[in-house]
């Protein structure tokens, strides 16, 4: 390459910082960086000045101190002597618990409502439209409070179960719906009980394998094996057999009315239920819209073509419509899951001890370390959100690969 024809290497002039495309982007980035740095420096210096004026410091030492308060529902061992960090983790797990429960329920509600909204039953589809519009357009906080109020003000208090002629009675003698929560029987496993559980889990795997096998048989031999009943049978029969053969090793601990309260069994707190259902129903309305849009995005021609090929409606749904609709439905679905997780922070309105209730609530109150706790709180939520988005990206990429 002869250098002759190249533009002469000009010596660097200051004006080139603004005028030369090669440098001007550096100039702007530098300015932006300086601005941001200045902003942070300004905020930081204010912080330092304010803290010094108030004689405070920033320190996370308090996380190791005993928290001193109790939490009514924890998934891990926790007492009032555990550290604040452990309290936060208990809260985090509670956040995850209610989010997962709400995600599952919201999906079920949303899919049902979305499908029903497309049903050719006028009444049902109109009812679902009302449901969707009603829940979408009212703040979730109001729904949480309303459902919590239903829980506390409408359901009977445990004392109503007392006496010879109680005002309320347990469902099947096992389930108690009270305004403190729902009490359900808890399975007690003897050692052999775990075997039964194992058998049950294996049967589920077996059922899945069976369905795979059925498809394979269809593909290989052209025989269509029945699937519905065999699946039910495979899942249930071995477990039931094992249960009786091993001498009924699983007992149920049925909740009983004790001094003040039901004891035994599993307790689902009223606040958990309220938050769970409010989030599920509220988000379900949004999901319903997505499901509807997804199914509608599969053109009528697809269904007709499949019908013209002789496929039955259920198969059309499974083989043609759903695979296509899912691609449209899943990405917004996941962002709704994200919203559920974020909205679960409203637990504070009903006293459910999630992350915001423990770390951002009582710990903050007790230690007065506002900056530290809130930073940590945001960090936790950010972590959850980022992991969910990461999953979303993986899924999107997987689907996109299949498409082309």
């Amino acid at each position, binding site marked *: 390459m002869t250098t002759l024809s190249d533009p002469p290497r000009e010596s660097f002039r200051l004006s080139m910082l603004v005028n030369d495309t090669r440098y001007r*982007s550096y100039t*702007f*980035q530098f300015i*932006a*960086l300086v601005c*941001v740095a200045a902003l942070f420096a300004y*905020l930081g210096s*204010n*912080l330092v*000045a*304010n*803290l010094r*004026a108030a004689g405070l410091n920033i320190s996370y030492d308090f996380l190791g101190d005993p928290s001193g308060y109790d939490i009514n529902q924890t998934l891990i061992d926790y007492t009032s002597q555990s550290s604040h960090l452990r309290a936060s983790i208990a809260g985090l797990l509670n956040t995850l618990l209610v989010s997962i429960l709400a995600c599952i329920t919201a999906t079920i509600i949303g899919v049902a409502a979305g499908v*029903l909204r497309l*049903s*050719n*039953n*006028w*009444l*049902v589809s109109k*009812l679902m439209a009302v449901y969707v*519009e*009603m829940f*979408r*357009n*009212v*703040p*979730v*906080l*109001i729904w949480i*409070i*309303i459902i919590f*109020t239903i829980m506390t*003000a409408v359901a009977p208090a445990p004392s109503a179960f007392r006496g010879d002629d109680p005002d309320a009675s347990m469902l099947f003698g096992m389930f108690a719906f009270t305004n403190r929560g729902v009490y359900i029987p808890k399975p007690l496993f003897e050692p052999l009980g775990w075997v039964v559980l194992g058998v049950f889990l294996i049967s589920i795997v077996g059922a899945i394998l069976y369905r795979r096998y059925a498809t394979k048989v269809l593909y290989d031999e052209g025989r269509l094996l029945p699937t519905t009943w065999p699946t039910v049978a495979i899942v249930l029969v071995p477990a039931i057999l094992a249960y009786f053969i091993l001498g009924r090793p699983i007992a149920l601990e049925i909740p009983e009315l004790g001094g003040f309260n039901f004891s035994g069994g599993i307790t689902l707190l009223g606040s958990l239920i309220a938050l769970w259902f409010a989030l599920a129903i509220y988000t379900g309305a949004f999901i319903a819209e997505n499901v509807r849009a997804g199914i509608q995005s599969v053109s009528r021609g697809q269904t007709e073509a499949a019908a013209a090929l002789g496929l039955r409606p259920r198969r059309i749904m499974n083989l043609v419509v759903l695979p296509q609709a899912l691609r449209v439905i899943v990405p917004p679905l996941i962002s709704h899951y994200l919203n559920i997780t*974020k*909205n679960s*922070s*409203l637990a*504070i*309105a009903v006293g459910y001890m999630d992350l*915001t209730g423990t770390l*951002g609530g009582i710990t*903050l109150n007790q230690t007065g370390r*506002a*900056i530290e706790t*809130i930073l940590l*709180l*945001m960090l936790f*939520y*950010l972590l959850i*959100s*980022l992991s969910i*988005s990461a999953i979303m990206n993986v899924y999107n990429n997987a689907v996109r690969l299949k498409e082309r």
Partner: protein
Amino acid sequence: MSDMHEHSVGWSRDTLIDEQPAPAAERGVVRWMRANLFSTIPNALLTLVALWCLYQLIAGVLPWLANGIWDAPSLSACREILQGATGGCFAVLTERWNQLLFGFQYPSELYWRPATAFILLFVALAPVLFYKVFPRSMLIFTAIYPFLAYWLIWGGSILTPVCAALGFVAGYLVYSRFITQSFAIGFFGGIAAALVFWWLTGFFNFTGILALEPVDSRNMGGFMLNLILGTVCVSLSIPIGIALALGRQSNMPIIKWICVIFIEFVRGVPLITLLFVANVVLAYFLPPGSNFDLILRVIIMITMFASAYIAEVIRGGLAALPKGQYEAADSLGLDYPQAIRLVILPQALKISIPGIVNVAVGLFKDTTLVSIISMFDLVGMIRGPILASTEWNGVYWELLSFAALLFFVTCYGISQYSQWLERQLNTDRR
């Protein structure tokens, strides 16, 4: 036609068959019912279940509504009037109507001011929302509205908002004087001019000149607070959102990453944590001795929150524009600010409007979260002072349904508008 089984023979119809009415089973209520309610057995069952649900709902709600008491001083008085019958105690709404709408601290003799501001809001929004129907000249009022509304709601001398507005005008004049030369000169010159103007007017003392009685922002409450937060934050967040979206699209990595981190951070945390920041942390980051009141800090945080979401919507709009638009602008010699301002943004914003409206609705609903940080918005009023008062302790349903209804009407209205707009834009685009 069975006579034509010799199919090589041509055949032609002489007289056309007239349209005939559909068979009875195909017409009227019966057919409609059969097709829409009872087409199959499961469908019929579904209908019955739906009818049953509907009946239960109506049977539950109707007497409550119909027997409602609209005039009583307290819950116990209500119960006395009802004598054990089902019925709502809507008296709480009539009794505390003003508190629900304006909060309990806004001076009652001044209610007309926010009310006027509220009505004028529609006048101001009309030319924006229905830009085809209303003359463009009405946009002048839209531009004046924020200052007018500020004056009406917060009171004080009219010169304060007038000066603020004049500052903008000064800035704009400088901007439009220099914009043809260079965007940077125009933009920063405009800002500088406005700042200088405000700084100068800061030396005057306006108290008492054409003044309305001032009201502190601490005293805002009720549904008014939701509306103020909603409108203010959404309008402030649009320009910020645009800047963030442009930044995120930029090919300068540092600027891009600054925007990405900001957007993803804000979108990754719940609004409530940002409100906590406003409530308990932000004060530490402000210069010592400065005194931002809570409403202002909340506005800052909600605006940040909304702008991240709006930035994502606008980014979608920008991405939807074909690259050719940028290239055409470039090849005509427009520089970057000009291309963005004259070519790209007008189109991108138009595409983004429905998305922005959706964000706005979501945000408006989220303004109720301020009740958690002890601000007395509509929900805060209900949860706090009203339910805590001796007279109305226990009237949940009436109050909560009222709040739900109020939000429903507003949000449903806005989202219907957005859908209408979306259809409008779709047909526009041919």
